[in-house]
């Protein structure tokens, strides 16, 4: 059954409405699926694509076509926010994604608050918005997803991360001040994307995990700032997916307090059990990206089929994909979902 357009299907799922089958998507950002296989033959190459709207448009179209994912996902890394906020970025190589070369500030107290209206005019924000807008206009039936780095991870990519984690305890005033600022910026950035035709925003916050922060700090810091961002996204009429990395055991009680329209998790989480235990209506995930990289298509089919049978609402990779993931494995995953 494929009665709905991919965009209708995803938006219906995110509104907790009935659908013909689960969508199979990959949001971009931390979960980038513009792999080496996908980019081959396009005459494009990383890291040149990252700031180039026209190149992003072509690359994301190729991702959708070659992998079978039912969405476009941009950007292709987690450094857009940190770049705008002043950190030094290593844009990587054809096989290695961009990373933070040096955080802008040594400690939270050093962070200077700048005008977020100005910030969204800097770095790659405009190129990403323009790429999304072009893709959305050409493909009205396929959702364009904008991927944001969550508040804690963004804060820990502009302030030295070891120091910032300590300051969550030692200098709460400045930790909150930085998170306020970063969240304001993310709200403005999400706003630009939504205005440009992105109907769905994904927030991945890999530093904000139960394993790193523990339940208290996850509740004190991760939940309120992520929720403020989600509320702002909702306020502008878009949907929000929240991805939480790692094991959820220590923070399970906080999961239902997240305002996102769907919660996406890593491969070790049993999504069916999570749904039953927490009562959250829409879960997304979680095909092991390790399997996607190293297993045969047959194994990928089985793993994916299990998720479909478990009634997982949105099927997607569980984590960041390796740039060396064979495109045949990704296609095996998306075919299984579509053939149901």
């Amino acid at each position, binding site marked *: 059954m494929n009665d709905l357009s991919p965009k209708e299907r995803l938006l219906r799922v995110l509104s907790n409405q009935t659908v013909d089958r689960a969508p199979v998507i990959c949001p971009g950002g931390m979960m980038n699926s513009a792999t080496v296989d996908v980019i081959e033959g396009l005459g494009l190459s990383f890291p040149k694509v990252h700031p180039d709207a026209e190149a992003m448009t072509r690359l994301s179209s190729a991702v959708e076509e070659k992998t079978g994912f039912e969405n476009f996902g941009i950007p292709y890394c987690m450094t857009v926010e940190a770049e705008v906020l002043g950190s030094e970025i290593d844009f990587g190589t054809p096989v290695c994604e961009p990373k933070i070369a040096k955080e802008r500030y040594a400690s939270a107290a050093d962070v200077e608050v700048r005008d977020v209206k100005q910030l969204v005019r800097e770095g790659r924000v405009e190129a990403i918005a323009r790429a999304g807008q072009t893709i959305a206009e050409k493909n009205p039936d396929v959702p364009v997803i904008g991927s944001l780095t969550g508040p804690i991870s963004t804060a820990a990519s502009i302030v030295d991360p*070891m120091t910032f*984690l*300590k300051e969550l*305890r030692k200098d709460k005033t400045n930790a909150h001040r930085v998170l306020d600022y970063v969240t304001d910026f993310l709200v403005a950035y999400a706003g630009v994307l939504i205005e440009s035709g992105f109907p769905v925003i994904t927030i991945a916050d890999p530093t904000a995990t139960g*394993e*790193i922060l523990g339940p208290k*700090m996850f509740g004190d810091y991760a939940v309120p700032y992520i929720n403020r961002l989600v509320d702002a996204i909702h306020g502008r009429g878009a949907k929000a997916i929240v991805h939480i990395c790692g094991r959820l055991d220590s923070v399970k009680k906080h999961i239902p307090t997240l305002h996102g329209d769907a919660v996406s998790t890593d491969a070790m989480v049993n999504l069916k059990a999570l749904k039953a235990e927490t009562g959250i209506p829409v879960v997304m995930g979680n095909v092991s990206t*390790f399997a996607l*990289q190293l297993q045969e298509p047959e194994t990928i089919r089985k793993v994916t089929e299990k998720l479909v049978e478990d009634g997982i609402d949105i099927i997607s990779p569980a984590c*960041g994909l390796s740039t060396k993931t064979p495109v045949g494995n990704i296609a095996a995953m998306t075919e299984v979902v579509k053939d149901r």
Partner: protein
Amino acid sequence: MTREEELHKGLSEAVVDMDEDLAKELAQAVVDEGFDAYEAIDKGLSAGMEEVGRLYEEEEYFIPELLLCSDAMYAGIEILKPHIKKREDAVRHTVVIGVVEGDTHDIGKNLVKIMLESAGFNVIDLGRDIPAVEFVKAAEEHHAEIIALATLMTTAMPAMREVLEVLEKEAKRGNFKVVVGGGPISPAFAEKIGADVYAVNAAEAARLARELVA
């Protein structure tokens, strides 16, 4: 309780309570009052860090707490270190540690390093995003007995396997024990790639390392 024991207890508590200033003050008192610096590290600061490791395993403490406790420990060590009398008898075992290639997340690795140091190891820290051959080269150069590999990313797991492959290929596997750990690593994966042991967290890594050289 003797005055020396009091100071040891105080140092241990300062570490557990994340109180860097108190750790410094008590370490200085150990020096000023002429007590043994090594004993103060071992029975005071390290004992405190061991308790911290226990709290971490029990999920009372998480990464921010662990980092603050280790700051307190290091602040004390800094003051005590110059006053340690050389111990001729103690054998120092060497560990080469690093985050495998393709991964720049080093919080976990840093914690393991701290725990290994507080367990008495000489730790050679290669840093993050380290190619497989560098681990082997460093381990040979420093006469290490253990190679400790960490990663937070599933995408870097093959790079972890590669270190074992280099050791096999160069017929050096028997020369070193290999400890692996990190978010996505499982005991099954450790076994599959032929590592000696899997450590679920930093405290266990230090404990298992001690067993490996015992």
